[in-house]
């Protein structure tokens, strides 16, 4: 090894200092949300690093309210159903388009990538969904975004670079059909890809509110993000959470506590999945970037 020069030593120090500062800037707001969600409403004003007065009041109130849980349930349904549809459409298509022996595949790719740059826009898309009779139904949440062009490209690139041609030839000699080959050989070899697709599509479903905003009117169908929007941004906290509050000041502080708690509860599924999946998604973006 070479001895580090003085300039390099200083470079490393400054670099480290900046990165640690950046890390703190990213982590602190997240930490603060956790902190504020477990701090007694009266004390949250002063708290910056450690809960002055620990309290689970906010979470109790959230657990008692049911419109959050309706949203939670709906979001789960949309995320799971939507992701299954996404996978069923994206993976086979991406695999077929990765096959060099498929005639007309570049035309199909062009047909698909074209839509990344040209779209009908909000109203024509809305009218189409309306025309198909999907408004105000579960299907409006899962069908209009059944395939993501970018995810399809990632999957196609993955298949191209990981499924060896020899494997296909060997299977063909044995009389294996494409469908069987895809099901029995390609999918078992593509676990990393499937994990990435589940993560990308699943997170997109879980976090989206736009489709719900334009396609849903029935409150019973609202996903979590719409419920969160009405509470966090439009300040519509239902009365059942506020019954025992006497003064306006108390109500205001309790509302803050509930909001912080809701943020945590909304993020919980992702927080749990994140550590398991994070190795995969780095790979995923890298696969996509090979083609760039």
């Amino acid at each position: 090894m070479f001895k580090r020069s003085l300039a390099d030593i200083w470079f490393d120090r400054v670099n480290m200092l900046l990165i640690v500062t950046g890390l703190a800037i990213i982590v602190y707001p997240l930490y603060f949300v956790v902190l504020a969600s477990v701090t007694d409403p009266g004390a949250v004003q002063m708290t910056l690093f450690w809960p002055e007065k620990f309290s689970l009041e906010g979470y109790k109130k959230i657990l008692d309210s049911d419109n959050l849980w309706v949203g939670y349930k709906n979001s789960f349904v949309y995320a799971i159903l939507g992701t299954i549809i996404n996978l069923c459409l994206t993976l086979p298509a991406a695999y077929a388009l990765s096959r060099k022996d498929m005639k007309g595949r570049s035309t199909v790719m062009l047909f698909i990538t074209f839509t990344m740059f040209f779209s009908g826009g909000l109203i024509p898309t809305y009218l189409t969904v309306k025309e198909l009779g999907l408004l105000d139904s579960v299907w409006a949440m899962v069908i209009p975004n059944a395939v993501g062009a970018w995810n399809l490209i990632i999957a196609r690139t993955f298949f191209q670079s990981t499924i060896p041609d020899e494997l296909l030839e060997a299977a063909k000699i044995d009389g294996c059909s494409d469908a069987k080959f895809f099901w029995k050989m390609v999918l078992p070899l593509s676990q990393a890809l499937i994990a990435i697709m589940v993560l990308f599509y699943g997170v997109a479903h879980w976090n989206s509110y736009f489709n719900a905003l334009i396609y849903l009117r029935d409150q019973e169908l609202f996903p979590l993000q719409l419920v969160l929007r009405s509470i966090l941004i439009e300040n519509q906290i239902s009365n059942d959470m506020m019954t025992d509050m006497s003064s306006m000041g108390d109500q205001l502080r309790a509302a803050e506590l509930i909001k912080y708690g809701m943020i945590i509860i909304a993020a919980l599924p992702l927080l749990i999945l994140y550590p398991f999946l994070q190795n995969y998604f780095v790979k995923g973006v890298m696969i996509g970037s090979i083609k760039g």
Partner: protein
Amino acid sequence: MENVNEVRQLDVPDIKRGTPLKQRASRLLKSYQLYLFVLPAVLYYVLFHYVPLYGIQIAFKNFLAFKGIAGSPWVGLEHFERFFRSFEFTKIILNTIKLSVLQLVVGFPAPIILALMLNQLMHKRFKKFVQTVIYAPHFISTVVIAGMLFLFLSPDTGMVNKLIGLFGGEPVFFMGDPDWFRPVYVLSEIWQNTGWGTIIYLAALTTISPELHESAVVDGANKFQRILHIDIPGIMPTAVILLILSTGNIMSLGFEKVYLLQTPLNLPSSEIISTYVYKTGLVGAQYSFSTAVGLFNSIINFIILITVNQIAKKASNTSLW
């Protein structure tokens, strides 16, 4: 379990039955299956992307629900003219451009710089830890980000104003001040996405041959010089492609976050084309007018994309097509 058995079966090259004719037929059947694989996705694209493209014609029509898209009467460029003449026109266009340009100028270099810095970390486990942490905000939903901003920036209870108060300053009403809308939007965008944005640059950095660095070290180059003369040229093609893509999207700024951060008070700077399209179109039910505004936006967007692509082609030999 089933898979394993099947794989074993495939390994045994037993059966070679069937005449050549049958084989040819089965080969046809095989590619037939590949087309079946693509069919659902293609159908999806036809239904949800190409049918709406056909629907764009209502921008030149007076859309009447009972007559349908094809049956509504043509009105030519009436809706476009109305938009150009409307008093909101200049304001909305300027707001869109100002916000996107600010976002691009500040947000584009940020992940490049961060990736170059991360690339210099020698401690592998620490680097991994940093990456895990900085990717996380990307997965927070827009609604939650907006909610956090409202909570943190609230004039009487928000922690930011508490800090300002601690240093003796006057509380700032961030979300109610048009001047603060753009900084709040761009800074929170950087907070959320800079880390995630580094992935692609870190991937590009790993493709740079270590020999380049080794010989530079022999020649006495320090880290800073190596970043400047090896790393930056190495990730240039990636950066140019991403720059073209993001300038191509300069007018199609995300609706979701802007809409959530809008308050009646900051509207003078927060009303942009996409939120205007939503409000006039879906909320105000002016379908044709709003489609015209959206189409105008897409055309401008496309012109910018082509221009930037041409410039990049001439200047650096990198382009999308």
